[in-house]
């Protein structure tokens, strides 16, 4: 069967060029970057070159880039590290995040509140899942340890006004983190323009390998390590660096950022065609997330009276791989927290569908997808006893 992958926000295939630059570090160049000998020196050089490449791409100093095992680990280190340090330094106990954060941020913040005595507060969002910078200014406190707002949301694709929020935080001397695991695959990243102190990246969203990420830490931002041990990564992340993956991440990020403009234009045209067609041809369908301020590859919908999980199965059987806000492989769906935060009632929120495009997506793929989707939504509604 001809399968069509439309879930690039979940993960992307490794770019062949990225695989090539990684391969030597699995075999001949196997050294430990911390070793004294030549093997170690060559591995260390590879890691530091990768660090410089990423630093150059996001406009920071190399020592401000910390390699981690994934975007989630970057979020964990940012939240936990900054919160602990701010409490030790100035008795700050208040954490301010949006209600549309990735779980790596929200669950870490919840744990800081329940186990470590922090006070967690959620920012309001508008109907598109966007944070208003004015609300940040209003809710910031003397004892705010960290503010975290997602750059671009994974479920609904909405892009937040990170630069304005960062500006406000900086003026008040509060650390500002943004999870850009989705965003960095599609948006130009300049840490100075974005006014962030901490920024999370994950390689597999931009055709790099799974299992490697990075955290930008602005010089002077105090963090406690959340993984302790050796002094790798400037003492912020213990453990022998994953050399081949780090090398792959830098290469993938270079390719992604260098081809951003062409890539974006091509994808957003496809995306807009898809959104228009779905809303025209399927009754009781809504776009979730912002109509304009959204990721160029990202379309997300809710269909009233549809079991999103069921729709995904039917799509998969027809050869289309998509995802949903409440996707759950154990058949235990709960309406997604993000969709609930948008104020969607349950009978809409359970019927979510996310279609995310990528490098290999073509107009023909999309055409065949749009050919079957209305029928499957209708069928799913029949099962649910509607329509």
């Amino acid at each position, binding site marked *: 069967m001809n399968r069509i992958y439309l879930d690039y926000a979940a993960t992307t295939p490794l770019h062949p060029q990225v695989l090539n630059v990684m391969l030597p570090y699995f075999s001949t160049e196997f050294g430990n970057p911390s070793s004294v000998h030549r093997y170690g020196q060559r591995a260390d050089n590879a890691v530091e070159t990768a660090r410089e490449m990423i630093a150059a791409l996001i406009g920071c100093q190399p020592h401000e880039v910390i390699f981690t095992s994934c975007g989630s680990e970057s979020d964990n280190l940012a939240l936990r590290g900054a919160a602990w340090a701010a409490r030790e330094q100035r008795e700050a106990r208040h954490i301010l995040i949006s209600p549309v954060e990735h779980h790596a941020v929200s669950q870490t913040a919840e744990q800081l509140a329940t186990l470590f005595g922090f006070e967690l507060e959620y920012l309001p969002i508008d109907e598109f899942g966007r944070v208003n910078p004015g609300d940040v200014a209003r809710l910031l406190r003397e004892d705010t340890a960290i503010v975290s707002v997602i750059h671009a949301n994974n479920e609904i694709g909405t892009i937040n006004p990170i630069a304005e929020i960062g500006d406000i935080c900086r003026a008040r001397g509060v650390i500002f983190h943004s999870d850009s695991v989705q965003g960095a695959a599609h948006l130009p990243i300049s840490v100075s323009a974005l006014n962030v102190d901490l920024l999370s990246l994950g390689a597999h969203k931009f055709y790099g390998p799974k299992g490697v990420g990075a955290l930008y830490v602005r010089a002077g931002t105090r963090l406690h390590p959340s993984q302790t041990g050796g002094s790798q990564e400037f003492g912020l992340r213990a453990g022998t660096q994953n050399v081949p993956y780090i090398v792959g991440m830098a290469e993938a990020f270079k390719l992604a950022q260098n081809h951003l403009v062409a890539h974006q234009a091509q994808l957003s045209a496809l995306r807009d065609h898809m959104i228009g067609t779905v809303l025209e041809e399927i009754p009781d369908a809504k776009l979730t997330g912002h109509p304009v301020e959204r990721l160029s590859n990202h379309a997300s919908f809710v269909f009233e009276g549809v079991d999103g*999980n*069921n729709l995904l*199965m*039917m799509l998969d059987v027809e050869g289309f791989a998509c995802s949903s806000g409440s996707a759950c492989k154990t*058949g235990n769906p709960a309406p997604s927290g993000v969709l609930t935060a948008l104020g969607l009632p349950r009978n809409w929120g359970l019927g979510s569908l996310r279609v995310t495009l990528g490098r290999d997506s073509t107009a023909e793929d999309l055409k065949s997808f749009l050919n079957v989707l209305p029928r499957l939504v209708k069928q799913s509604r029949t099962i649910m006893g509607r329509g």
Partner: protein
Amino acid sequence: MDGFARIESTNIRKYLLDPRILRSISRTMTKIVVAMSGGVDSSVAAALLKAQGYEVIGMMMRLWSEPGSEAENRCCTIDAMNLARRMAAQLDIPFYAVDAKDVFRATVVQYFIDSYADGITPNPCLLCNRRIRWEFLLQRALALGAEFMATGHYARVRTENTRHPSSVVGRIELLKAVDANKDQSYVLHVLNQKKLAHAMFPLGAYTKPEVRQMAREFGLPVAERSDSQDLCFLGNGTYSDFLIRNAPGIATPGPILSRADEELGQHNGLAFYTIGQRRGLGIAAPQPLYVIRKDAARNALVVGTVDELGQNELHAHNVNWITGIAPAKPIRAEIKIRYKAHPAWGTVTPLNDDRVHIQFDENLRDITPGQAAVFYVGEVCLGGGIIE
């Protein structure tokens, strides 16, 4: 078809060519959903169908468990789900989990609780087969474009004509499994022609030891997994603890009466006793006493001596005839009054309103309201109903 390269078995050809399983339909592009549980039976069913070249899709329902006991639910724990998913991956078939928690709680579990509250002893597996597996899940299987849904039940279907659901002309019969020890036609007697037209029971022609052997030969890691026993949603607890937690009113004590209405003692709640039960009545009597019946209206447990135990007739309601048509005249049949009961000869007389009267040739000791009476002629299951 991708073939079955991932099934490592030197004997696979034996099964591929096994005449017992070959059917006279074209397999190319025939989609079959297999209802999986992570156990041996449904896994082998999936493997057999895959080995025969069908396009097989695994589906598994997430059923309801009492909050706090989810981990103990035998058939749909995360563990069982992961096992089923691994099995599907090994067979290289897609696998989808379906949430059936709400509908299972609202129908099967509610029926279980309500029945006990009414003084009858339900068999929730029957309702699950009727309303959940062969309705809720079948509907979803058909929506995926499947023509058939297969389960790991030990039973068989026989059709006079083609099995293609869109062209069923002949009547479809439900037959006992070849393995008499494992026969599960009892719980499938609730199926009708429409559902049977989509039903496949690949294991019906095999014995359980053969199925385990196939699991080993297919290299399925569940080959040695033990069979599930109790009701899935009870976990490790007993049904009486479950009822006390979920239907508090059920533990209402009442009188234990003789057939002459003498009060002999107190019971702890009708739900905790079964017809024919002797132990645990807490009555000192010159001869052993047995539970004869439950009088829900008076919340009384009626007991008597072994001579008083037993009946030679019953009425059943909600009768399902597999053919869809009740016989015009009384029929001689073998009747099972419980899943594990020995069949007993009797005469089944169809009445109005989907009821039947059954006259047994001999007294039966444990005719239990709420259980199903299922009728057989030879290996053919004719149908059944709920004992009144």
